[in-house]
């Protein structure tokens, strides 16, 4: 007889792997990528390619330099690259995007121990770093469908939330909002494509629907009251900015959000409230990134308080503080 394998039980494993989860996320991001190329032209494809390539390269080099086993094959760096590019304006200079990738992969992810170990969402943190470092470039929004309209020069436009916030400019129609024909970061505009990807992730069991429902629901509800029960206002708040992208793809990141459903609800509602507060009361017209980062920081605390109660467990009564 051959040599026998000996292992601890169980002896069968589910076909789900980290790699195929990441592949599902990549697939889910593809509709929005295609939409962004249609809306903003080939430059969207270039920026995404640069981000993906530099994220993968940074992770590869980091692991080589610190002599850790390679983790590039788990595809998570590709996801980070895509998400980061989705959070950038299409005309952002390439070198800035590469700096963003460095922040995301090296500082936020790898230095904390790589996949699963980072406490903050790499793409979100990188976006915020870029936002604070290169504010002008990060808030220059290209005109949608410029290639189609024949406008050759980069014409700057405003985002819908910018319009609402400043009261200047014209709002795109709700249909345009849904299709993504509006100013904004390259991957956040096409709501229809993002929803398609989000639904795919839910159907594949990659993300729990509770997070986007609570996040978007909270923003919608608060806007509903703030806007004087105006459904149209709610629609702009929900479809504007990066809410849909953030709620489906970044607030559902495994590493940086609570592990239990109860925790996810608290996290998502927290994100919704902070997003609303920033949008309404702060200088920024947009608050999704900041809200997710703040809630990322609170995640260990939420996890602590939403720890599952074991079945049939007898929880000892607190015996004062004797120690």
């Amino acid at each position, binding site marked *: 007889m051959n040599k026998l394998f000996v292992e601890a039980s169980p*002896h069968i494993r589910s076909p789900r792997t980290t790699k195929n989860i990441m592949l599902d996320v990549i697939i889910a991001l593809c509709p929005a990528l295609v939409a962004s190329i249609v809306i903003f032209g080939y430059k969207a494809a270039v920026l995404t390619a640069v981000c993906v390539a530099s994220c993968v390269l940074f992770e590869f080099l980091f692991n080589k330099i610190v002599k850790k086993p390679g983790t590039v094959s788990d595809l998570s760096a590709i996801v980070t690259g895509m998400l980061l590019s989705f959070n950038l304006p299409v005309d952002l200079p390439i070198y800035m995007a590469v700096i963003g990738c460095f922040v995301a992969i090296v500082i936020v992810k790898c230095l904390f121990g790589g996949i699963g170990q980072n406490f903050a969402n790499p793409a979100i943190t990188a976006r915020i770093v870029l936002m604070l470092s290169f504010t002008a470039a990060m808030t220059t929004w290209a005109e949608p469908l410029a290639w189609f309209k024949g406008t050759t020069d980069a014409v700057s436009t405003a985002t819908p939330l910018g319009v609402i916030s400043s009261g200047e400019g014209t709002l795109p129609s709700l249909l345009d909002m849904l299709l993504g024909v509006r100013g904004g970061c390259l991957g956040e505009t096409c709501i229809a494509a993002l929803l398609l990807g989000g639904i795919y992730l839910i159907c594949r069991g990659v993300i729990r629907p509770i997070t986007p429902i609570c996040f978007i629901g909270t923003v919608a509800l608060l806007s509903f009251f703030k806007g004087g029960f105006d459904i149209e206002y709610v629609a702009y708040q929900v479809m504007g900015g990066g809410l849909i992208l953030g709620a489906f793809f970044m607030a559902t990141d495994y590493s940086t959000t609570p*592990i239990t459903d109860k925790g996810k609800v608290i996290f998502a509602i927290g994100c919704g409230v902070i997003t609303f507060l920033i949008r309404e009361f702060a200088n920024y017209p947009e608050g999704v990134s900041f809200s997710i980062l703040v809630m990322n920081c609170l995640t260990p605390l939420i996890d602590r308080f939403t720890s599952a109660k074991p079945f*049939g467990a007898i929880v000892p009564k607190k015996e004062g503080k004797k120690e």
Partner: protein
Amino acid sequence: MSKLHSVRLPHFSASAEQSTRKIPAPEVVAISMAQHIGAPCEPCIAVGDKVKIGQKIGDSEAFMSAPVHASISGVVKEIKDVMNVFGRLCKTVVIENDNKNEMFEGLEPPKCDTREDFIKAVRESGAIGLGGAGFPTHVKLGFDKNKVKIDYLLLNGAECEPYITSDYRELMENSDNVLAGIDLIMKKLEIPNAIIGIEEDKLAAIDKLTKLAVRYPNIKVQKLPGAYPQGAEKVLVHSLTGRVVQEGKLPSDVGCVVMNVSTAGFIYGYIKTGVPLVRRRITIDGNIVNNPANFFIPVGTLLHSIVGFADVRKQPDRIVLGGPMMGSCAFDPDTPLGKTNNAVLLFADTVEQTPTNCIRCGRCVRACAANLMPTELEQAFDARDVKELQRLKVNLCMNCGACSFVCPAKRNLAEKNQLAKDFLRAATAPKK
């Protein structure tokens, strides 16, 4: 009634519709004196003795113990220490087959007029739980009726592990005895109700038992969801009665006695014929087995007799004794099979899985029937954090393996939990 977490598993139940066959009589059997948890037996025969089927060859004075009987007729060749799959050395009686197939003369239906007689008879039969855990049956049935009031006898026919179909075959082939056994136990122990729980994928068994159970007004057949680990004792009690067995308690504390359907079937057979537990039904399956089916094997059959007999496409590189979720890997082809063994699974083309970083996806948390947090338990164990392990209640892990099964990073969470339990036991043991 809140629903417990569970996982959906592939069934691989190709062996289900084949009638149970016999394997060719093995030339030699090695019967371990430790067939179950609790105290091992002491051999009561000597090397050179001639033994016949059903003759008692080992017994013990201890409470948590059931005697062991010869499973073939022949000569005791030696009594030696053999390492079982858990790595423990156990005294083992090796019997060489004389191929005469003689039954021991003293076998006759036991006297069981009173409750005490009945429990004594069950002990003498060598009965232990045939589902896999192997708790001595007479201990389970011997509850103190002045202290606990048992109102349910729960029959475990969930058979929730993939591949294994031996309980299903018992339900299909021995249904009358199973029901009669249940009825007998209920009468002797004055238990008013019985529920047979069968997983929803075993429709034929549910139909058959439901039809036959019409004769017994107090025996009910209940369909269980096909969700692993449905057959775990606490989960079964919860599914069938809604009762919660608390930490450190037994089903009897909430008025239930849980027993495997095959055990009930066996007990009835024993009371009628007096033939003790000398053979059992096992499933032979696995990814290289051509005709998966169930077989009756004498207790103590050596693993290599099974492997040699099985119709396989190629040489196995991994042999699992028991189910793929909770069974153990055999490391020695000479391992003898015991009373608790319900399956031999032969696999080839095993790919070693390397664990990668936990991605905190929470699948293990949503898979755990005990509602534990396997990923946090792993961290606590890695840090050897006694307090945290206690807070997270690692002691409630039933080692069903669901957490490791679902883990996309292929981390060995269930294994870590077992190590953590041992660590915690050692760390909290009173210092000498």
